[in-house]
């Protein structure tokens, strides 16, 4: 494999990882602050993508579509937090899993009822379409570079938010001692709604960004959701830094596994069989990675356990 191809694949892995981070950040934040395991996070990703596709179709503006995705996902997040999720904070994980599983059913079929059974159209804005040539002669799609940039910016903003702002201090306090910050006079339920809406907005943004290069359809959130869970478990649940490291690790493992494993097996197997075995193993690679991490460090890479 040439160096150029390898570098391009590393970029692909990085881009995939950054996208996973947008999903995982919200999940891990919500878990860290409220102790809630939210299976419906993938539905918020879908809401973001559908809102973006709908607004882009009506207005023709990608920027408006992105803002719509943030607003719609945040609103949907706040709505389910106020009606359902806040009753679940005091419950065990089992109830949370079941209730948010029920939310997935409602969101998916509700979206299908509202938008029909066929995928929607959302395109890359003309300004960002097509490839650019990077130093070293790599041709790489500009839009994917933009996703990497947006993702890293969001990551930096999140770190700044948590490290430097008043809300960040409350969030950190909420992670370590829930009773204490209530005693200090912080409006805890407003804080929770805010954190949940923030996580939802990040998922919605990811949905809109990815929707432009994938298919905007019902059920698009669940595969990403499972990957995002893998990410936060590898990184350590509750840790934003862990989510970033885990996301990039998973992105690289998945992308490179898909390329390298079939090539590896074709060294000593017939091409067809090598292809088949290699890609089977590649699809299992990140789960194997996760199992290994947990066996070695049961609390994840940056977890507290």
């Amino acid at each position, binding site marked *: 494999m040439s160096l150029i191809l390898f570098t391009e694949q590393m970029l692909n892995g990085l881009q995939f990882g950054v996208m996973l981070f947008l999903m995982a950040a919200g999940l891990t934040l919500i878990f860290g602050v409220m102790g809630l395991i939210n299976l419906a996070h993938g539905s918020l990703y879908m809401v973001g993508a559908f809102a973006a596709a709908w607004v882009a179709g009506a207005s023709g503006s990608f920027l408006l579509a992105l803002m719509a995705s943030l607003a719609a996902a945040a609103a949907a997040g706040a709505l389910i937090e106020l009606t359902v999720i806040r009753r679940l904070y005091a419950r065990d994980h089992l109830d949370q899993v079941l209730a948010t599983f029920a939310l997935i059913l409602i969101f998916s079929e509700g979206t299908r009822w509202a938008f029909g*059974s066929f*995928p929607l159209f959302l395109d890359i804005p003309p300004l960002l379409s097509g490839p650019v040539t990077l130093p070293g002669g790599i041709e790489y799609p500009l839009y994917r570079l933009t996703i990497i940039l947006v993702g890293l910016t969001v990551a930096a903003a999140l770190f700044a938010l948590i490290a430097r702002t008043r809300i960040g201090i409350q969030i950190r306090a909420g992670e370590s001692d829930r009773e204490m910050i209530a005693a200090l006079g912080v409006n805890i339920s407003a804080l929770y709604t805010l954190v949940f809406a923030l996580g939802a907005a990040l998922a919605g943004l990811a949905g809109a960004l990815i929707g432009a*290069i994938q*298919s905007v*359809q*019902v059920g698009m959130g669940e595969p990403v959701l499972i990957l995002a869970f893998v990410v936060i478990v590898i990184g350590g649940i509750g840790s934003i830094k862990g989510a970033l490291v885990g996301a990039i690790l998973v992105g690289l493992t998945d992308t490179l596994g898909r390329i390298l494993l079939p090539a590896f097996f074709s060294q000593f197997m017939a091409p067809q069989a090598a*292809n088949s075995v290699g*890609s089977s193993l590649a699809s299992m690679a990140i789960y194997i990675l996760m199992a290994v991490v947990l066996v070695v460090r049961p609390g994840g890479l940056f977890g507290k356990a």
Partner: protein
Amino acid sequence: MKLKTLAMAGVLGMAACAAQADIKVGMITTLSGGGAGLGIDVRDGFMLALEQSGRSDIEVIIEDDQRKPDIAVQLADKMIQSDKVDVMTGIIWSNLAMAVVPGAVAQGKFYLSPNAGPSALAGKGCNKNYFNVAWQNDNLHEGAGAYASDAGYKSAFILAPNYPAGQDALTGFKRFFKGDLAGEIYTQLGQTDYAAEIAQIRASGADSVFFFLPGGMGISFLKQYADSGVGLPVVGPAFSFDQGILQAVGDAALGVINTSQWNKDIDNPTNAGFVASFSAKYDRLPSLYASQGFDTANLLISALESADINDQDAFRAALEAADFNSTRGEFAFGPNHHPIQNIYVREVIKEGDIYTNKIIGTALTQHGDAYAAECKM
């Protein structure tokens, strides 16, 4: 259930109650969840043909399999055991067909497939009561291979998901492609990001790309491929360029070549009537799945006109004759009850604001399938 039966009876314009129907058709298809678009098209095409036939003695029992094999088997049991249907049809997916069809035909029911055509049911596992009105799964891929050879491509890069239909697709393409392969990749089923594969295509030195990625996978691949600037010509089967999903791919699909046994511009009166009446009734252009549902119903009606369904041998002979006006023009069954038909080459175009296909040539003429020889009925 009862509610639905009655509603269907209403659609058929029946004055009397459902119990008077002479012929019962059980349709198991996908009406909820991600793949519902295909099932809805098959159902709508089928019901349109029944309505146009004016026959009031056919009752259709429609159930949703949710694209789950175990639900499909359960529904088949119900239709055979309690509804006592005569004919079954409707299944979209090969894995669901493999779950239902062998059992249904073993119990003496007729099964008319409006979509799935797994190789196992065309070859060693063929059955005298199983008829496929759509295609054997390999057909459209074989057409793509033949087209790629005719177009003078020497070195193709081919990819498909890593599951049986994907493996069959690549095998089918290679069966008719005379050039070399620059690369062959199996992707993950349900994969949505193809950046790594597109990078490999760019580096492979291929002169063309063949892909089989049904549903959302194909939409994702085409959008990302168009944006990557690789720009090699792309060939694929009709499933990724169907009326239902073309609008979601948009400009990225324009000019792409795909193979199909049907298109809305096939020039015959049946097809013209079908396209006009389907568009008028459902307010959308028909898809290839709708045409298959329509043809399936017309085949059934043609056999009912000439034979009594209780005389299984006569009815089977009437089905074999395939004496109906197909939207595809010429249509006949091969020895394994799979179609012998033309596979056309289509190009994606834009008509006003709507993306659609037009036929630009014929890839394979009067084409059967590779498994017929293995079939012993």
